């Protein structure tokens, strides 16, 4: 009895020490789960989830404070990916999902106040005080954060037009449709 108790306690002590040591020795600075969640988010930094960006939202999800369905730009795909990663049940996305867009500045109206430049989370707006501003379209994430601060309302969101290189085959419909002759020779 005594021997058994001693053996178990010794083992427990040894493993405890080992665990304690490895916790110190192999300490990971950032939470790997947060990184994994952050990698799945669309990085628009739009704040529609009510957090100050994608990373804070990822931290909130990891801490169990936020639900996984609060990212409208990510849409269903992001919810499914998060559900898969975290082993939670997928839910419908909260908030309205819009088609991907970019901001366009009406350069005739812009007064060069730099407020939008300060609001842009990814530095996608170019300009200087009292100089006309413009959006670097390829860098714009479509977060809409520049619209609110503009004092002359000269920023618009324009949906990205589909082009051949980004076109996708649709999910197959149940049946193929037969076109008629008029459609062919139009």
């Amino acid at each position, binding site marked *: 009895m005594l021997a058994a108790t001693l053996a178990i306690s010794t083992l427990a002590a040894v493993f405890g020490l080992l665990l304690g040591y490895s916790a110190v020795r192999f300490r990971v600075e950032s939470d790997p789960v947060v990184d994994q969640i952050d990698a799945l988010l669309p990085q628009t930094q739009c704040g529609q989830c009510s957090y100050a960006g994608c990373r804070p939202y990822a931290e909130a999800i990891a801490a169990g404070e936020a639900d996984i369905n609060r990212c409208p730009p990510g849409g269903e795909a992001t919810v499914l990916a998060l559900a898969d990663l975290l082993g939670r049940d997928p839910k419908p996305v909260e908030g309205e999902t819009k088609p991907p867009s970019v901001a366009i500045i009406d350069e005739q109206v812009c007064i060069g106040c730099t407020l939008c430049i300060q609001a842009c989370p990814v530095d996608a707006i170019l300009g200087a005080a009292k100089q006309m501003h413009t959006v670097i379209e390829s860098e714009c994430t479509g977060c809409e954060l520049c619209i609110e601060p503009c004092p002359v309302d000269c920023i618009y969101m324009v949906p990205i037009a*589909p082009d*051949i290189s*980004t076109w996708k*085959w649709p999910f*197959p419909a149940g049946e193929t449709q037969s*076109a008629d002759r008029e459609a062919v020779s139009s």
Partner: protein
Amino acid sequence: MTEQAHKLHRFHGGLHLPRHKEESTRDPVLPMRIPARLIVPLRQHIGESAEACVAPGDRVNKGQLIGRCDTYVGAAVHAPTSGRVVEIADHPVPHPSGLSAPCVVIEPDGRESWGESRLPPIEDYLDADPVSLRNRIREAGIVGLGGAAFPSAVKITPRPGQTLDCLVINGAECEPYITCDDSLMRTHARGVIEGIRILMQALKPRCCLIGIEDHMSGAIAAMRDALGGDEAHGIRIVPIPSLYPAGGERQLIQVLTGREVPSQGLPADIGIVCQNVGTAYAIYRAVAHGEPLISRIITVTGKGVQHPRNLEVLIGTPIADLVAAAEGYTDEVSRLIMGGPMMGFALQSDAIPVVKGTNCILAASHEDVAPPGPVMPCIRCGQCAEVCPAQLLPQQLYWFARAKDFDKAQDYSLFDCIECGCCAYVCPSNIPLVQYYRFAKNEIWAQERERRKADIARERHEFRQARLEQEEREKAERLARKKAALAAKQDDTADDPKKAAIQAALERAKARKAAQEAEQMSAEKADKEPSG
């Protein structure tokens, strides 16, 4: 000449399909008249789009460069005939989406004048430097004419450490209805053989095999004539059994050499380059005659046209002109398909131009495209797996694509699917399997694109955060420094003179005291001396 038969191999699965090739091969190839308008898309190949280097209103010569492409994977675009550039604008192009893309629209003047635009012919091409041949193939804007339109110069440039020891020439043309390669070999066998010899000069392979399906007896005979037998100059003509899709690059390589292209790999990984007979002919025209790729042979066929035949067409000719050359539509026409019935795609209109990769325009009749029946649930019969030439599990891929479980679909080698359509053809439940695979592939690519975009956005956002923090820190530091400097200055001006004065006073007092003491001591000494 060796009479020993070439040992053939077999690929997995495949189908014997009704060929429908006789309709379009009754008449010789008809060179088409120059159309009223040519719409030349700037992107007709895999890779980056070419950039227009002419302006509306410019006069262009036949063969003049109109689209420059400086990226490695890309192809130049040339004016198919002489005329005037009318506009450079978006027009519908042959693509399953039916979307528009930038095109150069030319109004031909009918003079067909080359001007200075012909490239200098390389006369001694069988002794030419491989690099100059490759450059010519690039300059001439030649792409794979089998349908995929991959830039040929890229394909025949070995990557570092790679040896390409076998050249496979694809004359199989396995898909029903299509006969353009058959016609080309019957009409221009000499040019095709010369093109192959140029490719051999550029590549220096150990062997060269031309695979032609055995039902194309006319083409085989013409090629034998041109070559002077079954085997000459290291080139060998090999008739192969007709089995769809024997003309698939991987399948043809397997049939001819017995070697399998690795999963997700390229033929170059096993030292093989595969080129279409049409490409070989285009290469011959470019090298020996200095003509860029501006025309090709296209099959116009199906029950929907009056007179199915092969036409020699300028790139950019609207499909309506091709149909007119085939004496117009019949009452049966229901849909236009670019490519064959198995791998082609439906076109929205006949105003769309033909491009370098167009091999066939199929005007399908109502019965050809009649829906095969309602889609029914998969009964797991396994016929799709039996016919799959890539040895995949089409049924599993179908489940995963349908459930949008793309990781799983990739685990089951979705990207090895060549979209040949065999699985959908045999499916007793009429499931449009290939459409599911295309959907899944596109979704995966789109996700990949979005991930890349997100990574850039994340990087920019983090950089911005870091910059803002740094600015904040610098501001705080500056403020602290200013404060300290101010404080120090106050110390200097207010305290120091006082201190110094006190210090000086103290020192003066000390000195006086010391002097007094010294005086006292010497006085005492003087007092004692006389007495002692």
